[in-house]
């Protein structure tokens, strides 16, 4: 039977799907084929290796009577909004989506081709883990996939969408990819399930608590975002895909833009409160500057003191990093440094310009942070910004204190254009602390004097560490023009096998 043709029409796709849903014991979750039709929407899907069925079971006892053509994974290529993507989708209805040798080989084949062609790989994960009946064959399969994940890293974007319970070896492939998205309430990621946890550490924990979407997006930081249900996740994946270049050989995509690049944003002139201790929402600034207020935030519920995500400026994809004064005053701590660093490195690897909004009072002090290795983890963000050679534009909205000033894409770390708003305070530290150290409380008007001298953008501007002090309402226009110029930027670092980021 030529099933390829089945994929070419929506109606038949749906039919095929329903057959699979009926076969499934879990009617709630949408299964594979149809999912592909959702992601690709009306663009033909070319399924590969449909009849590949080598079940290499070790003993007869464990053999399952039926043979499934194509095993427990669907692989192929298609187009999302006209752009090429390779997709694999594990099928929980066949052997619980478990990974067999054949399953692994199918995935490896599309990954190899994707790397060769230079197009992203999207994995829709729903796998119970290794197929125990196949023994080491299945473990070898995992390793084959891991190797390709690593080799493709930084070459083509790799996205994992977790659509069901994924346990054991199945969790490491998503962890190696660039982005891991989850579905709320129905998807899980854990090394071992609650039963094993109970027997080993005697902890009583539910699947949801152990590895649900909430845990991974808010506590562990394993997943980058969670969506309401399968359909919502797939629709968001389509949206997300449009921000990404196809490979490291391609520039960041430029979309048709209906938002004028010279639009003034008057609300920015009043957005930073007059008292420097008062918080405001960095997302308000980001939304009002980017095209059409559309911002695809990455890890919105984890380490909320830093905001990262994708947006467009005059149609061109940009990566945005911003301190969030609303949460923990926007300070840098272990989690926010790691979150920021990984995002910056992704953008650098895939030619996505970086725009950084700075309002940072410094690194978070305390034993918890020091024992946790804030020095080592904070260094990651510093490393990532310093190493990045994509266009880097920085806007200091308010505080840029101490080492954190250096870290946040400063001029010194090869920043291309660094702006300060009139509200900026670029200094070693805040007035109160500084005066205590310098005068030990002896000088009465010292604090005011310090504010006059240091808590403003002028010292930095006079030394050329800030290119210009700009009217906040003109920020969008400025950035759009800068990006046009910087589009042809070329910068290189000394030859090396690879850098040694402090992991």
């Amino acid at each position, binding site marked *: 039977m030529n099933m390829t043709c089945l994929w070419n029409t929506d109606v038949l796709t749906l039919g095929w799907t329903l057959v699979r849903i009926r076969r499934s014991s879990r009617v709630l979750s949408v299964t594979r084929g149809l999912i592909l039709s959702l992601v690709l929407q009306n663009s033909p899907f070319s399924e590969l290796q449909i009849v590949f069925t080598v079940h290499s079971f070790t003993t007869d006892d464990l053999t399952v009577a039926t043979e499934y053509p194509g095993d427990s994974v669907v692989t192929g290529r298609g187009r999302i909004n006209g752009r090429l993507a390779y997709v694999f989708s594990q099928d929980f209805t066949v052997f619980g989506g478990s990974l067999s040798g054949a399953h692994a080989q199918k995935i490896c084949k599309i990954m190899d081709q994707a790397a060769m062609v230079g197009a992203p790989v999207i994995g829709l994960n729903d796998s119970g883990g290794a197929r125990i009946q196949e023994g080491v064959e299945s473990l070898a399969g995992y390793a084959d996939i891991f190797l390709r994940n690593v080799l493709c890293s930084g070459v083509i974007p790799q996205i994992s969408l977790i659509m069901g319970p994924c346990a054991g070896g199945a969790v490491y492939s998503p962890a190696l990819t660039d982005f891991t998205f989850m579905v709320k*309430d129905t998807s899980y990621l854990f090394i071992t399930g609650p039963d094993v946890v109970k027997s080993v550490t005697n902890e009583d924990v539910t699947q949801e608590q152990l590895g649900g979407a909430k845990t991974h997006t808010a506590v562990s930081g394993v997943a980058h975002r969670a969506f309401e249900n399968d359909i919502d996740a797939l629709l968001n994946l389509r949206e997300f895909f449009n921000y990404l270049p196809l490979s490291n050989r391609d520039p960041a995509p430029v979309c048709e833009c209906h938002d004028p690049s010279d639009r003034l944003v*008057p609300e920015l002139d009043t*957005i930073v409160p007059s008292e420097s201790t008062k918080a405001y929402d960095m997302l308000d600034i980001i939304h009002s500057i980017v095209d059409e207020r559309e911002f695809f935030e990455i890890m919105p519920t984890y380490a909320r003191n830093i905001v990262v995500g994708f947006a467009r400026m005059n149609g061109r994809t940009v990566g945005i990093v911003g301190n969030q004064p609303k949460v923990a005053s926007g300070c840098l701590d272990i989690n926010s440094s790691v979150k920021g660093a990984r995002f910056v490195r992704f953008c650098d690897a895939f030619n996505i310009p970086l725009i950084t909004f700075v309002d940072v009072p410094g690194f978070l002090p305390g034993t918890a942070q020091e024992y946790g290795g804030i020095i080592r983890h904070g260094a990651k963000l510093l490393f990532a910004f310093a190493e990045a050679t994509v266009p880097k534009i920085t806007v200091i909205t308010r505080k840029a204190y101490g080492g954190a000033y250096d870290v946040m894409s400063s001029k010194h770390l090869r920043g291309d254009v660094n702006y300060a708003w009139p509200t900026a305070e670029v200094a070693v530290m805040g007035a109160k602390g500084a005066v205590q150290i310098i005068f030990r409380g002896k000088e009465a008007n010292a604090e005011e004097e310090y504010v006059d001298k240091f808590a403003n953008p002028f010292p930095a501007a006079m030394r050329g560490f800030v290119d210009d002090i700009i009217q906040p309402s003109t920020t969008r226009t400025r950035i759009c023009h800068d990006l046009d110029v910087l589009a042809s930027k070329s910068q290189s670092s000394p030859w090396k096998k690879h850098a040694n980021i402090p992991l």
Partner: protein
Amino acid sequence: MVYCNRFNFLFLLQWETLCSRWCLITSHKLYSSVYDPNEKTFEKLLIANRGEIACRVIKTCKKMGIKTVAIHSDVDANAVHVKMADEAVCVGPAPTSKSYLNMDAIMEVIRKTRAQAVHPGYGFLSENKEFARRLASEGVTFIGPDTHAIQAMGDKIESKLLAKNAKVNTIPGFDGVVKDADEAVRIAREIGYPVMIKASAGGGGKGMRIAWDDEETREGFRFSSQEAASSFGDDRLLIEKFIDNPRHIEIQVLADKHGNALWLNERECSIQRRNQKVVEEAPSTFLDPETRRAMGEQAVALARAVKYSSAGTVEFLVDSSKNFYFLEMNTRLQVEHPVTECITGLDLVQEMIRVAKGYPLRHKQADIPINGWAVECRVYAEDPYKSFGLPSIGKLSQYQEPLHVPSVRVDSGIQQGSDISIYYDPMISKLITYGSNRAEALKRMEEALDNYVIRGVAHNISLLREVIIHPRFVRGDISTKFLPEVYPDGFKGHKLTDLERRQLLATAASLYVAEQLRSQRFLGTPRIPIAVSKRRSWDLSVHLGDGIYPVAVSKDGSSFSRISRNASGETSIQFLGTVYKLQILTKVAAELSKYMPEKAAEDTSSILRSPMPGTVVAVSVKPGDMVSEGQEICVIEAMKMQNSMIAAKTGKVKAVHCKAGDTVGEEDLLVELE
């Protein structure tokens, strides 16, 4: 099935930002009175107010060549009135008692800036006799009546006596101080129910309660005296006959210091919620020339009786047989003064300044025309779906006034980026339209409301638009009960007709498809060519309200404004004033949605959330207490209105998340029950 002809959308100038200063100046065109540049006037004038009224006064000052001084609180440092004025001085922190009501600071500013006169606007110190007295003692002109008139009219009991003496019709009632609840009940019985209990020193609907029986009288006495004490520092009350189904019609008067007084026709202000005006118009559809003259003459008689000078307003209640009763006299410029300016051509602020300088009026009663019709809508930052408007706060992320519609005047004191804070009145602007007749003015109002862009805060445009197109309003069949009578279950937004629903679905679907097609258009020449499959038709499924509608869009168009969209297909569209939430999916996605697990809804009966931003005045429970359904749990005060929060079910208090004095935001968790 709905088919759309073209992909033609009017994205309501969404990205255009007009210089708001320019808007404010050009919007100010609907009065024609000419200023004589040779007439000597003040050199410098201070405006002891904020927001739209401060801007309004500054505009006239600029026209007359008077330098202006604005005062402002900390949070208003970047406000529009501050930018418009020639000088601006900060008078204190955000709370009004420490800034706009801070007489010491304001007097200091007057001395420092050498302002010769003060315009108080409305509210704040506009009817404060102490302020007028202090100004007089320093030789600064107060733009308004003299202290005597403010005092006489500011006290409800005294004003009523004066009105009686001037042969003005008054409402039967008890004129005096009510000592306790029992006395209140006795008096109420004498007058006969229903009765209205209100603060003697009050105004603007605060400290006012209506009672239909003894029980309500006692409760009303308690609430009104509390609110009177907290808002005005004066707990005297009066009780009077409550006139059922009345209209609120007021007469604008203008008097000078030489004994001349004019009446500038009436304003109909019957559309109110919680005794605060929402829609006003001039003239009234209800008055005939005889009644108008009788009311005008009584108003002028009262003004003369108190030796009134400046602009003032005499408020009347008018019953269905055109009997009118004196309500109160406001000794200041009213919020709704623009409608009078539109039909008479006078600039009231300019006349006030002239009168204060001592000039006689330039007009005779016979010169006062009624030219055409004017309607004013008060655009508030509030959610009209909650008791016709609970305040909403936030930043105006987008703001654009409909000044391209002809004969529209917008009086506002905010601009894109302004904050609507809990400290001040949540009014965004006054939208005034003018026409040669009422129908024309209303048609323009409809168009103006449809073209008003406000994002970032909830606003009452949907309610305003529904009111002005309602058949009863259009007929002129209105009373102060209009809103509760027309919307007994609360305002629910516009009810779509079949045709309108089809228009909305068609537009929403077209927007969705346009967005999908746009996301396939990439600029530049990519390494791997983009291959888009040609699709000429789309089968969609649109979720609107409780219904799911199939929509087919084919490649082979109305004015809408898209509010937001996301990747999940959720879209909000403002259509006929009301914002509709829709979810648009492809048919395949909609079919598959059936298989998605249902999300359990949060049980809201056991948690109490704040319905609006405000301050917690009192918390009557503590953790562990048993409460019964309907019992008061805490009291929230916002914009000086006290709201009693009650338990939705019987149970034990699990946790209390607020304490008296806390500032809470909308939807903040207050109390949890077990």
